């Protein structure tokens, strides 16, 4: 959406013969990066893209007073920049520091040392969500090939935890189940993997089998349906409820209306007759039951089947720093594309009607009176019932999901300033991150002369961090990053409205 909006802006305002000159350098070594692509701001989208020469230089014609570019090169993190240029003039040389990617590779072997094919290895990292630590996937991970090899690339440097899920390999032997590197059942027992920018490290999994417990049960249907042939397409799934694995399920054997899951490790599960591929229809049979598994077998679970019913989900939007909230469009979108929307009332309340079971993502946007949504403000917290659902997919079953509570921040403070390196020279093309005491994030970009403007969602004490790649923008939710860089700059006190200009001087590396 951001790309589209910028494209529309670009098409609306075309100064003649305005050029951008730039140089792309490796952020670690300072060496020029040749053959980097300069996408977007270099012309009409879809036109051939300029590349950097052997000295890392590029020249591109700007299409708009506000230029937006993405610098791409395999082996580096993408770098996006938007900055103003004066029509008809050549802008000062843009210096882009590309951050080398980190790569984690390795192999997965079974108990006998044979490669495991078709399993998945993912890198996870801790994030602060609603002020609480949560282990989340970094993108999608990698599937092992017939050599058992995996490769996770394009990562920002940092601390990760590797998670293994057997996928179809569990059909072969269900005693192989989800583990954390090197062979831990729980994330808190996992060994962290630290990887630096430009580094490629290898970590192999040597899996062991775990007996777990047995879960048996039967499908219990309403009296009216008893005696009829079981509806086809009503398989039972045992899905692990976990923020680390959004849709991981264990193999379940079914015979008629009985089911058995063997070698189930301890954990909290949902026993249910649907996956996210379900196309729910009101009235179709569905079963959905929470199940805590400890270290003893669970026998004769009754999975009650009920007709799918649509539910209305009420919610409230609270605006930080505003007494009168703007109308917001709230959308629950299924990964398969269906969506339901509502526009909030004057008091921030809204009701999403007719929500069917599935895996959803929440979207919140400003809604103009014409019904056209524009990006403004940003959600700070998103909760459904007692679940934190910010920036992730989440399940809604057939039971009442609870109320949605959304906190939205709108810019309330403006900070201008200048970013200088240790020698006092301006630093351009950097992201200046502000983190409030209650973990509200805001940021601005430095221009060619090191100046920046940041519109903050919250006043008060702010920690400041500098990063150079968009992939690192999220690092203010990473406790390890905060610990490592928390003292780079003194904490500043920001008032609502305008503030005294800041001069930020970076430490020598």
């Amino acid at each position, binding site marked *: 959406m951001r790309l589209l909006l910028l494209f529309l802006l670009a098409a609306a305002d075309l100064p003649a013969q305005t050029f951008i000159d730039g140089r792309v350098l490796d952020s670690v070594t300072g060496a020029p990066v040749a053959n980097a692509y300069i996408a977007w701001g270099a012309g009409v989208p879809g036109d051939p893209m300029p590349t950097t020469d052997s000295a890392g230089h590029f020249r591109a014609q700007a299409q708009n007073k506000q230029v937006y570019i993405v610098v791409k090169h395999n082996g580096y993190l*993408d770098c996006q920049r938007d900055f103003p240029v004066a029509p008809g003039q050549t802008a000062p040389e843009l210096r882009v520091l590309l951050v080398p990617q980190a790569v984690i590779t390795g192999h997965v072997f079974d108990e006998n040392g044979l490669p495991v094919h078709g399993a998945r290895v993912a890198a996870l990292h801790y994030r602060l969500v609603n002020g609480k630590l949560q282990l989340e996937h970094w993108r999608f991970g990698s599937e092992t090939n017939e050599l058992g090899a995996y490769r996770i690339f394009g990562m920002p440097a940092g601390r990760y935890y590797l998670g293994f899920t057997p996928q179809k390999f569990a059909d072969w*032997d269900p005693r192989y189940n989800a583990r954390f590197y090197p062979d831990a059942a729980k994330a808190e027992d996992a060994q962290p993997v630290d990887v630096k920018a430009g580094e490629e490290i290898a970590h192999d999994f040597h899996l062991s089998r775990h007996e777990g417990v047995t879960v048996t049960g039967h499908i219990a249907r309403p009296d009216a349906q008893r005696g009829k042939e079981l509806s086809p397409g009503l398989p039972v799934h045992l899905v692990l409820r976990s923020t680390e694995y959004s849709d991981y399920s264990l193999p379940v054997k079914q015979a008629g209306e009985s089911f058995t899951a063997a070698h189930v490790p301890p954990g909290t599960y949902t026993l249910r007759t649907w996956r996210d591929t379900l196309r729910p229809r009101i009235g179709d049979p569905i079963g959905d039951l929470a199940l805590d598994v400890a270290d003893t077998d669970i026998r004769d679970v009754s999975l009650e089947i009920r007709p799918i019913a649509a539910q209305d989900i009420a919610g409230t939007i609270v605006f930080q720093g505003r007494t009168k909230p703007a109308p917001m469009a709230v959308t629950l979108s299924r990964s398969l594309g269906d969506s339901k929307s509502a*526009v909030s009332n004057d008091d921030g309340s809204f009701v999403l009607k007719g929500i069917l079971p599935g895996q959803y993502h929440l979207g919140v946007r400003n809604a103009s009176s014409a019904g056209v949504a524009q990006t403004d403000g940003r959600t700070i917290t998103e909760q459904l019932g007692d679940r934190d659902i910010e920036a992730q997919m989440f399940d809604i079953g057939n039971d009442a999901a609870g109320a949605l509570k959304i906190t939205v921040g709108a810019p309330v403070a403006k900070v201008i300033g200048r970013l200088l390196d240790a020698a006092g020279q301006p630093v351009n093309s950097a992201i200046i991150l502000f983190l409030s005491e209650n973990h509200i994030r805001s940021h601005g970009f430095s221009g060619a002369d090191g100046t920046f403007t940041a519109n903050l969602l919250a006043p008060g004490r702010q920690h400041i961090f500098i990063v150079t790649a968009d992939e690192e923008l999220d690092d203010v939710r990473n406790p390890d990053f905060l610990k490592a860089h928390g003292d780079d700059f003194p904490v500043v006190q920001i008032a609502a409205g305008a503030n005294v200009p800041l001069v930020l001087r970076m430490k020598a590396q």
Partner: protein
Amino acid sequence: MRIFPLLLLVPMALLYAQKASHTLDGDIIDSITGAPVASARVKLGSLYGAADARGHFHFDNLSPTTYTLSVDHPGYLAANPIRIGAKQSTVRVPLTAGGIIYGVVTDPNGLPALAGVGFLVLLFEQRPIDSRSLGGQPLPDGKNELVKVGNIESPDDRGQYRSSLLAPGIYYVGVISQRAPDFWDRTWRSTYYPHALDVASAKAIQVQAGAQVRADVQLISQTGVHVSGRVTIPAYDPPPGTMTFTNVHLAPRGAFLSRSSGNSGIVDGRFEADDLLPGKYTLMAETTQMSADGAGRDQKPVFGIQREVEIGERDLSGLDLELQPLAEVTGKVTFDAGCAAGPVPVHLRGGGMMGVQEDSVVSAADGSFAFAAFTPSSLFISAGAPGMATVFLGDIDITKTGFDYPSATPEPLRIVIHCAAGGGQ
């Protein structure tokens, strides 16, 4: 009192003797070379084992019953489970080594394809044309077609891809970008191995069991032509709370990799599409009605048209389109003599501007069925189990070819159900 313990002991001894006397010895061999396959995973019922370095495995203390034997080795194709009889004591399990196609995808500038921008590596297997299969791309020889197989791979951060566990056969490799051209260099074309725009110029890859074949692909850059035309839409007042929009789309006919135009909106009653390569296309236009709150709910096609156009080496203007109201797709199901008549599920599949769309209805007691107005595209109808039905439009069998919707002379479809699967013509 003394007899009782003896009576108990006899069956236990028998049971013990039965268990002790049943064993299974197996050898796992490469189906091509005959060499032993070391270290394979072996499963006999719920018992797990592993072959040794000589490909041999052994189970003992087996009950006198039948078992299912499964064998798995990561470098070999999946083998069907084997039924082991109650008295069977030996078994030979042949496994076929999987082939591998691997390589590097480079862009038109000779650089490794950028990772994470939507390039996909597709693998097609050459197979004899199967009248019952849909979606195969016929090869110029008229005897074979290409069928997409295997996982879809994306080039990694080195531009590399690797497709493994391939059955021996003939394959083609194609690289596409799943992004719309506006999001990337529109002159970069989906390309077949090694450097071909169409399958006729592509190079087939012969894969033997266990062989590794390198197949580097360099994407082709080629500028296309500009296509434009006027669009006329019938006068229409959308119901309160709804709005309409119209899109035009040019989709290549019968080509897996050729790129479509993307959806072109209407400006001042005209549509325009850029950078299309020469070839046959289906020109589709659709007016869609949806909720006016921006959420896109309750979408339904209202007007539409589709026609075949041929695009040459030069820009093409004057492709004028007159959209027409979209009618229901109706028809009647009949049964071959001797078949049990009754309601059957009827399925409709079309490939319109929004990708593959499907709908299903159940025929009424008199055999009639009706689908609501559908998105303009080539529609395929099926009924009952696969291969059970022949579908006619007038006197023409359209079971495999489908039919263009909306058509100039809409008429009801006729579906004939045969009694046994495979009875389609």
